[in-house]
């Protein structure tokens, strides 16, 4: 790094090394039809997926369209509350504003029958025992606290059933399940 020459008036002073640059946005989120349908049923402890009209792929959570083809998805299916871990990350560094106890595991959860995963927490599992292909189930909030919110599911925990083979876990499973041509 080149030496920076500063005027003598500030040369011997303690230099500023950091600045606060907080960013804050406030807005109103209005979910579309697919997300509304999902949220209303989520408040009944049901998880909905959307079925692609093109190849029958099941997309969870529903976003209203199959993003690969831009095709409208207006058919919903109810999903089981079990799945497996497609990939995961162990976080050891705290983030301001996130009150989770360290270390914690975030994982891509693939529900049984789903073709894509979603990001969620995994707990009741030491990080060193977390595996790609590990089978998990949802741990819900108490019934009287369930609402139209992503916070309904506290985390996912291992079921203890045998793992999915690595080659079939997460998006690797496309080659096993489908025609091998999926580009989702």
């Amino acid at each position, binding site marked *: *790094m*080149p*030496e*920076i*020459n*500063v*005027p003598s*008036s*500030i040369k011997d*002073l*303690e*230099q*500023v*090394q*950091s*600045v*606060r*640059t*907080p*960013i*804050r*946005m*406030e*807005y*109103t*989120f*209005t*979910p579309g*039809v697919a997300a*509304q349908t999902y*949220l*209303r049923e989520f408040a009944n402890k049901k998880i909905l997926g959307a079925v692609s009209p093109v190849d029958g792929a099941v997309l969870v959570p529903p976003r209203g369209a199959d993003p690969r083809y831009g095709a409208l998805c207006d058919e919903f299916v109810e999903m089981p509350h079990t799945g497996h871990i497609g990939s995961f990350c162990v976080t050891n560094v705290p983030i*301001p*504003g996130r009150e989770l106890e360290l270390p914690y595991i975030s994982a891509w959860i693939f529900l049984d029958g789903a073709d894509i995963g979603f990001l969620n927490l995994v707990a009741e599992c030491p990080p060193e025992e977390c595996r790609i292909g590990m089978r998990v189930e949802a741990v819900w909030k108490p019934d009287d606290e369930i609402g*139209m919110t992503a916070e309904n599911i506290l985390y996912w925990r291992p079921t203890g059933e045998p793992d999915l083979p690595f080659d079939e876990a997460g998006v690797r499973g496309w080659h096993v399940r489908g025609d091998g041509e999926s580009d989702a």
Partner: protein
Amino acid sequence: MNPEERLSAPIVLEYPFTRTTGPVIGAFMTGLREKIILGIKRDDGTVLVPPTEYDPVTSKALTEMVEVGQTGEVTTWTWVENPRDQSPWDSPHALAMILLDGSDTPFLHAVLVEEPDHMKTGMRVSIKWKKETEGHIQDIEGFVPEKENHA
């Protein structure tokens, strides 16, 4: 879907960033704390304010920081009648590009006048510092018409 049944929820997204400044922006911020403005010299002798670590045209590392004036000229401006909640300013004000004396690039800051009729491209302004400075761009409360500051 019946509009009355439509769901909606307030979302607040907030990042409490603190960013490290590096040797050039750090010196600029140190200058603000000491109530002086620093720019950086390019090879052709022109001065960039605020300073950058690299020449924006040639990408050459720049190292020569110089003090520029605390008065300058409004090169263009717009009027903010209703500052948003996040704005550093509570009252109506101008946002202006200000070319400080001794600098070759204008930078954005507020001009604190009461109404847009008091604004004019080419008008002379000078810095109004906050009483307490800490090494932050908001150490500059804003700019005011030059005569007013000397009054």
